[in-house]
């Protein structure tokens, strides 16, 4: 089932969403496309996990949303980072770097 995978990736997904919003505000599909872009297509985020994550981050106060016009003149909900969200991004990024360094060195060890 998809849930166990989603659980595994939850921290990752949150970090990716925060990162994708670091430069500018984006709507849901924009976030999904940006994540695909910055991970070179490794992660393709489906709506089923994207929207719960967005709403969770918003309720946590890291994102703020507002309705606006998309580049194709459609009504869409845009998300942007709040100040606590930006802090969280730094914290998460540092944590992730530590973990990935540790993992890399663990795997390199003979």
């Amino acid at each position, binding site marked *: 089932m998809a849930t166990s995978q989603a659980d595994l990736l939850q921290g990752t997904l949150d970090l990716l969403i925060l990162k994708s919003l670091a430069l500018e505000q984006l*709507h849901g599909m924009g976030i999904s496309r940006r994540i695909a872009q910055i991970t070179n297509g490794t992660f393709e985020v489906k709506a*089923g996990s994207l929207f719960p994550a967005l709403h969770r981050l918003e*309720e946590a*106060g890291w994102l703020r949303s507002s309705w606006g016009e998309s580049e194709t003149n459609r009504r869409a*909900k845009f998300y942007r980072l709040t100040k606590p969200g930006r802090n969280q991004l730094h914290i998460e990024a540092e944590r992730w770097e530590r973990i990935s360094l540790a993992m890399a060195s663990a795997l390199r060890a003979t």
Partner: protein
Amino acid sequence: MVRRFYAFCRNVFRKNRVDHELEEEIRSYLELVAAEKVRCGVTREEALREARRDLGSLERVKENVRDIRTGIYMDRLIQDVRYAIRTLIKNPAFSVVAILTLALGIGANTAMFTVVNAVLLKPLPYFQPDRLLTVWERRLTDGTLGTVAPANFFDWREQSRSFDKMAALDPYPDFILNGNGEAKRLSGAAVSSDFFPLLGVRMALGRSFLEKEDLPGENQVVILSYSTWLREFGGRTGILGKQVTLNNAGYTVVGVLPRDFSLVRNASDFQSRNRFDVWTPIGLGSAPASWLRGTHPLSVFGRLKPGLSFERAQADLDRIARNLQRLYPVYDKEAGITAIPLRQHVVANVRLALFTLLAAVGLVLLIACANIANLLLTRAAARQHEMSLRVALGASRKRLAQQLLTESIVLAIFGGLLGLFLVVMGVPALAHHLPKDLPRASEIAVDGRVLAFTTLLSALTGILFGLVPLFQSRQASANAPLKEGGRGIAAGQSRLRSALIVGQVAVALVLLTGAGLTMKSFWTLLQVSPGFRTGHILTGRLSLPPQYLNGYKFGTGEHRRISAFERELLERARHIPGVQSAAFTAYLPLSGTDNSWAFNIEGRSPKPAGVYDVANYRPVSADYFQTIGVPILRGRGFIDADNEDSPLVVIVNQTMARAFWQHGNPIGQRVRIGGEPKQRGWRTIVGIAGDVRHENLAVRPQPQLYLPYAQAPNVEARPTIVLRTSIDPTSLTSALRKAVSGVDPNVPLDQVETMKQIVSASVGQSRFRTAVLLIFALLALFVASIGLYGVMSYLVSQRTREFGIRMAVGATSGSILRLVLGQAAKLISIGICLGLVGAVLLARFIASLLYGITPFDADTLISVSALLAGVALLASYIPARRAAKADPMDSLRYE
């Protein structure tokens, strides 16, 4: 945190809007994805279809988002509650029965709790009440506690190190308010200046007493109770600083107490006084030392210093007691000092009774819970299909359990609300039926604590009976009920139901035993002969104004003025048509008034210092014995000629005669009452009177010493007139009033009651708890019988097929009847056995509430068991007969 709260509120209260926005957001996402695809050359229709496919189920996405929302539990709860209410509405018969049962059970519990709350739980209505203590003299010989001699109070106050303040109250002064027309008696209390500051009372108007007002000469000031201020002085603020005339003397009004002030009291405090109209400074300075140490009129209160333990205070008092024993061996050799927290003192003799009643009503609710659990079991059987279906559709067991519990709790809350409504409507009536001497009864009200109690109780009740069917459904596997029949579950259910019935019967027996014991005890108490006549007696209390008491000196027997008044009043009273005889007494039995004196017997060796023989002291007029019906067993009664000028005489009661003249004849012996001058004091015993239960019916008579009113060493300003009538005594009330005002309009008469009323009031507490326990026990019996009836009906219906087969192969309807009744009898007898064990274990806790019987009274245990067995068998007889009467063919076709 704030954001979370905001999100919570939005999710819960603006659910539709939030959902709508989500839907819109997802749609716009679809559009954007589709638009992207269109740019890549797909048709718009195709693009939308693909986007949808990629998205998966729109509902699933929405559900996923909802799952992470703050307050999702709240959302589910609301869903469950809605569903529960729909289910309840769909089964009106079940819902009505269950809610009514619960309303009765929870209502009765709430009602009892309002009483317990007001009397036992609420903090006393004073500033930092936990630091308030009462302080008593303790007789070292037998440990009895008593009120305090003024000199002792002064010494304690001066020598103690553990009290912020110590204050004294003398509850006996009476005032006659002269002025506007008819003379009125006001009940007074004299207090030391620290009294109100000690309790933390702020005057509604004016000020409290000043320290200098404790001294004689400065003490002609008065504080009014709020109700007296309204009643007698029209609530005018101008009264401050004005003079009022009390006992023919001028007093300056310095303050008015707040409306809600009342002095909480133990039933035995201050004798029969339960309210004080006017308060004056105590002003003890001028009294002689012998009086200051020898009489004990004061109630003493103390406020502990902050942070000091109760034990430290008691140790401090013990130290003072040792000092005083050394300094004043004559008075204090056998005297200790005991502090009791005020709260504990106030409720001392009602605590056990109230908690017993609360426990009893809790048991009633338990029985009611078992009934509802039974109903739920029946319904759960009917809902097996629904539940299985929901499990099959993916509902988790936890989710189902949650929902079933929600249903039970919703049921219980509706029951609780209805019960609470009944209580709110019933509180005034309830307060009316409480015994008059219950402390703090005026504070009974439905307050926040009561609401919290009811809410909690309802929820607990719902959980309790809601858990039973859950326990049962745990045994059933998910798919079993989907198969036809489901016999195995029915068997499991039967066991659970049988257990519930056994429990109900057992609990009902415990309650019936409690009620049976208190009833028998109350009956025994009522059978006690008080030693006097109770029928056809009218009594009323007089307050003699100061002009009658002026010129009186302690121990001189100067009563001529009073005697003249009393002679004239008795003369008039005797001539009221319907009055057979009339007399006076200073202390009427069972009225809450009493007095005791030390005495010496002529020719006996003197007692060591500080040790006294004590007898109840009873000044009475000549016709008292024949009027109230106390027999003179030997010698003579008093005659009119036993007056101020004749030789002093006394009559002793049988108990006193036996205690002090075991072998001889007391008649002709002489006794002297403590404190009287030796030259005049010896009084000759002329008769022996029958014993009278004076304090209350349950207390054995003490030595009693009667003396002629005119020869009393002390002035009696508040005598009681006693009339023996040949007609209904209540019809003579106004004639008695007229007689009193005819002799002197300045003498107020109050507390006009028949002796029957006085006796009845004296057993008020006992009657109250007997009545309440009886009601609870009958309720328990009724509810348990209904439960038994329901369960037997169910069990019989489960066995219809079996009975049909039995009858088809030749069983008679009699044998079916016996079979079913036998099954019921088995359950009932197991229940009764368990109940007897419980009753015997619990009854010893109420032993101190019983009079004249032990808690293991075999008669009671046997009769309540028989009663319960009879009623329970009757309840199961109806379904049993139905089973026996059924047509075997019908029952076989039924399935």
